């Protein structure tokens, strides 16, 4: 077990901003913070368990059919998440819509199975999945936070007790920059954030 396998996914090899994998859900569901958290939780679950199972089965799975095997394992976990969310978190399930089954073809998950889990031990693979999933969730939440605050003037979280789940930002909510909650704003923000990370990287290399 190596703790580095966990931390690398958070910043150094962040799946969204550095490796640029799994873009569709990143932009598709980030209109509200709660959706980003829901999608992140789904990805953490699927990624961790598929990594564990694939690394445990790596000796049994024949090389020539490994991709179909991975896909079946991943699709199975995604279906489980789908059904559980439908039953216990229906509002998030409805908000994620078609993007939830699309986790199956999220390149992060198949990518980690192929690049990491089929070469490393079960423990390392679990940490890798957890770290990558958390890194993905963090980036998603960041994008959703920016888009929702600027685009709608609200922050939507999970309602707990008397807290209705929505924080309204005075001033902004009356006159939000609506384009940010639409497709164009999502792509623009992604471009700007990626540029920012490239700038950081360039500066680090220059030193």
């Amino acid at each position, binding site marked *: 077990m190596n703790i580095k396998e966990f931390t690398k996914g958070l910043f150094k090899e962040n799946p969204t901003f550095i490796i640029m994998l799994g873009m569709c859900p990143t932009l598709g569901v980030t209109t509200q913070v709660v959706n980003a958290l829901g999608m992140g939780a789904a990805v953490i679950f699927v990624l961790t368990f598929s990594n564990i199972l694939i690394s445990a089965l790596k000796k049994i799975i024949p090389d020539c059919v490994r991709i179909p095997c991975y*896909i079946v394992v991943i*699709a199975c976990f995604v*279906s489980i998440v789908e059904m559980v969310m439908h039953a216990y978190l229906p509002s998030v399930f409805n908000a994620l819509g*078609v993007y939830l089954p699309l986790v199956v073809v999220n390149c992060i998950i198949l990518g980690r199975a192929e690049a990491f889990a089929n070469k490393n031990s079960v423990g390392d693979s679990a940490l890798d999945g957890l770290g990558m999933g958390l890194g993905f969730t963090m980036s998603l939440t960041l994008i959703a936070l920016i888009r929702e605050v600027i685009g709608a003037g609200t922050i939507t979280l999970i309602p707990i007790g008397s807290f209705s789940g929505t924080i309204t930002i005075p001033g902004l909510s009356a006159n939000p920059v609506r384009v940010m909650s639409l*497709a164009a*704003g999502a*792509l623009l923000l*992604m471009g700007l954030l990626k540029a920012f990370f490239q700038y950081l990287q360039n500066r680090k290399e220059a030193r």
Partner: protein
Amino acid sequence: MSYIAILLTYVFINNFILVQFMGLCPFIGVSKNNETAIGMGVALTFVTGVSSIACWVVYYGLLMPFNLTYLRTVVFILVIAALVQLVEMIIKKMSPALYKALGIYLPLITTNCIVLGIAIINIDKGYNLLECFASGIAAGLGFTLAIILMSNIREKIDLNPVRKSFQGVPIAFISASLMALAFMAFDKSLLANLHLV
């Protein structure tokens, strides 16, 4: 819904890339030059058309009668993976020239969100077999349109100076954002104005 309405919906109004963000990975990855963009677009349109039909047949022929609809995601992705493999083998046998042009894109298509996405959307919307085929083709055409436009823009960008931080992917995203802004001109009222709904 009429077939023209379905075509307009998925090519312009709900363009898979610029409105629904599906298939962004190949959109950014393969749009560096015009030729590969066209190749990818044609290959994808072919696969979405065929797989929409296959998934529809499997869903209504196998899953519904046996009450196994909860296996939808697993079965669809398997059908798509098998189909892509099959298409690859058939093209290789029938037309080596076509294989040479499209072959390298085909394995990438299995994990393209659009293929699984349109199959699931078809079921959710309750389309019939022909509507399904229309929406599959339209989804592919929408992708082709967007990726060809994008590759032309990127070829132009390459000739111009761009700040170092913005080079490559960031400027591509920002260009895509401006395209998405233009595509906002197409909305549901287009169908209403053409008396298609």
